[in-house]
Each structure stands twice: as structure tokens, then as C-alpha cells.
């Protein structure tokens, strides 16, 4: 028989999961939203000189993304704000719907890529104050990340000290692509401040190094190449930190690699250990096999999740890395968002699911 139906969508059922999301991107309605948090001096600078990052493009990324604002096409709030800029819509579309018990904000505002070092520091501080006022004060499920400009490590250390007093900030945020490999000594003051305050370093993919993403070759042709190049960028920064002796200097320092995926880690460990067994005398300050530093000091977020042909291979890789080092993340509202209900194609046993979705992040960040 013929049955007429009602128009429209059913409300999608909220998941019964309770997850910690380690990567949520808050956005501004417009750059002017930051102005109240900048001093007169820097507002005037911005009006006169604008942003001046280490690349030719001032207000966009080096490679065009396949979607506007790098966002899910359904992430534009009905009120016309950019994706990630409207807290009510974020609650409805993500925090409530996906059972996000705690979400960690990753504010990507390019503080570390400014050629004007002082302005980069001022920008970082403004973003941190904006995070507190616009997000943390209004939504108790959210936590902040202390944005710093690593190119001025002393100012960065001061900003870490200032923000660390606010316990809603749970890590220090910097991009893996800096002026120099981040393990080098000139950056150590910021790592020292992070370690002293018991704050992990969160490194979210990106940053503009000023060099082609191919690490030594020329500029690549496609976004697809640039997207992949986030992986060697993460490998390079993790390797730099290990071989410079950063973890000998700061044995309590913890590092989270965010959005850099993780399946590459076992191969990097094997290769570095092989090199170390032959070349150890070049780096005598690296007292143990590199794999041990990588196992002890690094955590990894899941998105964009690896999707091996045989889904079960993912379990094997995670067991090599350690299930205690893998933490769920969505990247909301960006286009390669992972949904907690469907992210794993392999069957993961209940204990490991709990660790990945909730307990590892709670333990690392001391979340309550």
C-alpha cells in the first residue's frame, strides 16, 4: 500500500559512548574577535602590517583544501558563523551527539609562524585569553591548550607559567614545523617550563616552516602529497627530540603527537635503533636505544585513523606501540573528522576501547 511520510530527519540518536576528544578546533567568527585580547600596540601593528608568516600567503594555507575552511560540509552553523565558531552548534552537533565528556581545544592561529617574533608571542597570549573567555568560561566540558610561539622560547616559557595557573589548560601547544628541528637546544626553555609545570607538549600537525613540505626537495604538486607529508614531519620532530637528548635533560617531559597518526611509529623505532647501535658514539648523550624514549615519552591521537586493508592489522600495530599511548580524537569540525561510533573497523576489545576513548587521556592530562 502507499503510505505518505513526514518530511525531514529524525533526530540522530546520541551515542552512549563517553569519550575524551583530544582534538577540537575552536574558530573565531572573524579575526576581530581576537582584537579585545591584543594590546593597542599590536592592534595597530595588525591594522598596519597584517600577518606576516614564513610563507608567501598571509591568510591561507600553502595548499588549497578540498572544502572551505578545511571543514565538514555539514559543520556550518545555521547562523552563518564559520565552522567551529558557534558553541551552541558545537554542543548540538558534536559534544552532545558524540558523547564527548571532555574535549581538548586546539586553537590553530599560527602564532609560531609569524616572522615578527614579538607579534607571534602577543598573538599566542591573545588566543589563550580568548580560549578562556569564549570557550572555557562557557562550557565546562572543554579544556584549553596553551598556544605559544616557540621561536621566542623565553617568552613562551613565561606564557606557559602564566597559563599554567589556570588548571583548565592541560597542555602546551606548538606546531611540529618550526624554524629549526624542535629538539634543538634553543627551544629548551619552553620544554623546561612545560616539564616544570607538569604539562605535556601537544604538537598538532601543521605550522609553516618556510620550506617545501617534501623536506629537502621542492614544492609538491598536490594537497594529497602535502597531507601525507605531515607524517614525515612528525617523524622528523620526534627523531630530533630523541637524538638531541631532550628527554635526558627533561626526563618527565611528555609529548602528544596530534593528527599525525601512528602506524609509522614501529618502523621508525626499528630504524632508529639500528642506526643507534652503529652510530651511538656520535650522540653519546642518547644513552638508551631511541625506541625506549619513543615508548616512554610519546602519546598519539587517532585521527585521521589508519585504515589498513585488513582492519585487524590495526590491532597488531597498536599492540606494538602500546594501547596505553593511543588517545581518541575527532578533529571536529574539520573535513577528515572521525566519528567515535565508526572510527575503528577492527574489533577492539572492551578494555582497550576504554583506554583509547577515555582513560589514557584522563591519566595523561589529569582530567577530572
Amino acid at each position, binding site marked *: 500500500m*502507499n503510505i505518505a511520510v513526514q518530511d525531514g530527519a*529524525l533526530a540522530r540518536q546520541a551515542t552512549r559512548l563517553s569519550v575524551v576528544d583530544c582534538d577540537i578546533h575552536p574558530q573565531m567568527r572573524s579575526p576581530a574577535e581576537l582584537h579585545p585580547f591584543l594590546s593597542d600596540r599590536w592592534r595597530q601593528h595588525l591594522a598596519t602590517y597584517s600577518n606576516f608568516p614564513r610563507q608567501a600567503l598571509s591568510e591561507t594555507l600553502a595548499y588549497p583544501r578540498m572544502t572551505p575552511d578545511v571543514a565538514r560540509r555539514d559543520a556550518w552553523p545555521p547562523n552563518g558563523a564559520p565552522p567551529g565558531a558557534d558553541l551552541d552548534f558545537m554542543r548540538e552537533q558534536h559534544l552532545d551527539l558524540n558523547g564527548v565528556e571532555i574535549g581538548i581545544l586546539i586553537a590553530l592561529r599560527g602564532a609560531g609562524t609569524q616572522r615578527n617574533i614579538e607579534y607571534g608571542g602577543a598573538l599566542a597570549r591573545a588566543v589563550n585569553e580568548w580560549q578562556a573567555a569564549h570557550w572555557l568560561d562557557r562550557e565546562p566540558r572543554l579544556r584549553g591548550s596553551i598556544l605559544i610561539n616557540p621561536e621566542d622560547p623565553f617568552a613562551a616559557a613565561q606564557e606557559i607559567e602564566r597559563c599554567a595557573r589556570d588548571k583548565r589548560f592541560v597542555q602546551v601547544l606548538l606546531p611540529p614545523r618550526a624554524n629549526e628541528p624542535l629538539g634543538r637546544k634553543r627551544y629548551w626553555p619552553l620544554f623546561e617550563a612545560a616539564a616544570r609545570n607538569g604539562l605535556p607538549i601537544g604538537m598538532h600537525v601543521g605550522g609553516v616552516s618556510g620550506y617545501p613540505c617534501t623536506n629537502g626537495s621542492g614544492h609538491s604538486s598536490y594537497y594529497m602529497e602535502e597531507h601525507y607529508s605531515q607524517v614525515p614531519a612528525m617523524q622528523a620532530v620526534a627523531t630530533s627530540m630523541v637524538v638531541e637528548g631532550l628527554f635526558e635533560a627533561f626526563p618527565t617531559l611528555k609529548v602528544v603527537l596530534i593528527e599525525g597518526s601512528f602506524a609509522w611509529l614501529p618502523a621508525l623505532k626499528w630504524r632508529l635503533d639500528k642506526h643507534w647501535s652503529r652510530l651511538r658514539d656520535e650522540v653519546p648523550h642518547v644513552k638508551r636505544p631511541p625506541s625506549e624514549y619513543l615508548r616512554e615519552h610519546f602519546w598519539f591521537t587517532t585521527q585521521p585513523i589508519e585504515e589498513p586493508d585488513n582492519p585487524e592489522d590495526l590491532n597488531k600495530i597498536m599492540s606494538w606501540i602500546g594501547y596505553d599511548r593511543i588517545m581518541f580524537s575527532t578533529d571536529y569540525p574539520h*573535513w577528515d573528522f*572521525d566519528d567515535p561510533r*565508526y572510527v575503528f573497523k577492527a574489533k577492539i576489545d572492551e578494555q582497550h576501547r576504554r583506554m583509547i576513548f577515555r582513560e589514557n587521556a584522563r591519566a595523561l592530562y589529569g582530567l577530572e
Partner: protein
Amino acid sequence: MSRHVVATVGEIAPGANKLVTVKGREIGIYNIKGEFFALANKCPHEGAALCKGRMVGLAQSDAPGQYRLERQGELLKCPWHGWEFDVRTGQSWCDPENTYVRQYAVSVEAGDDLLKGPYVLETFKVAVEQSYIIVEM
């Protein structure tokens, strides 16, 4: 299996879609150049609402440097990760055997045919002069 009146023909413009709920399931009704197709509104990859995606063409290449765009407006690109689905088959372009969207049979029927016989039309006003899109499910 029952037949559900989901829209009038004039309601969905070519290239557009309408989201309806039938038997508790969300279904997108798509108009491609006057033909109608019904697809489950859930991406088989990670569950995104497919009706929020864009209709695109199929970019093809026989060799590097040679490009052409075929079947303009016939592929649905998922609003999240960009998987391309052939609306005519429900299959994804990159993994047609394993990653596909459920399709439902669609027909177009005249209003006066619907008014004949023992049909139940609870909330949908049917007018003789209109044509209607019917989904079987």
C-alpha cells in the same frame, strides 16, 4: 514491502535532494536530470549524512596530463571525507564492492492513479493534477 509517497515531482529540482524518513530510516531522494533515486542517508564509511554532500562530476584521466570531467552532477561526494558515490548504483568509486550505499526502488506515479484503490495516505495531500515520487521499502 510497502510503497511510500515521499514527495511531489516538482518539489525536488534537478541536482537537488530531499531528506525523508521512512519506517524510521533517513532516505535521501535525489533528482538527476529528471530521474529520481533513493539512497540511505548514511555514509558506509563513517556514517555522515550523505544528503549534505555535493553533487559532482567524475574526474577521469587516461594518462597524466589528460583530464576530462564526465557524468556531471551524477556523483554524490560525502560531506565529510569526500568519498564519491554513484547515485545510480549506490557504489563508491574507489571501493565499489565493499563500500556502497543502500538504494531503494523509486517510481513516479500520477496523482489520479494514487487516488484509485485502497491506498492509505495519512498526511500527504494528493492532488489529481500532480505526479508523486514513490519509494518502495
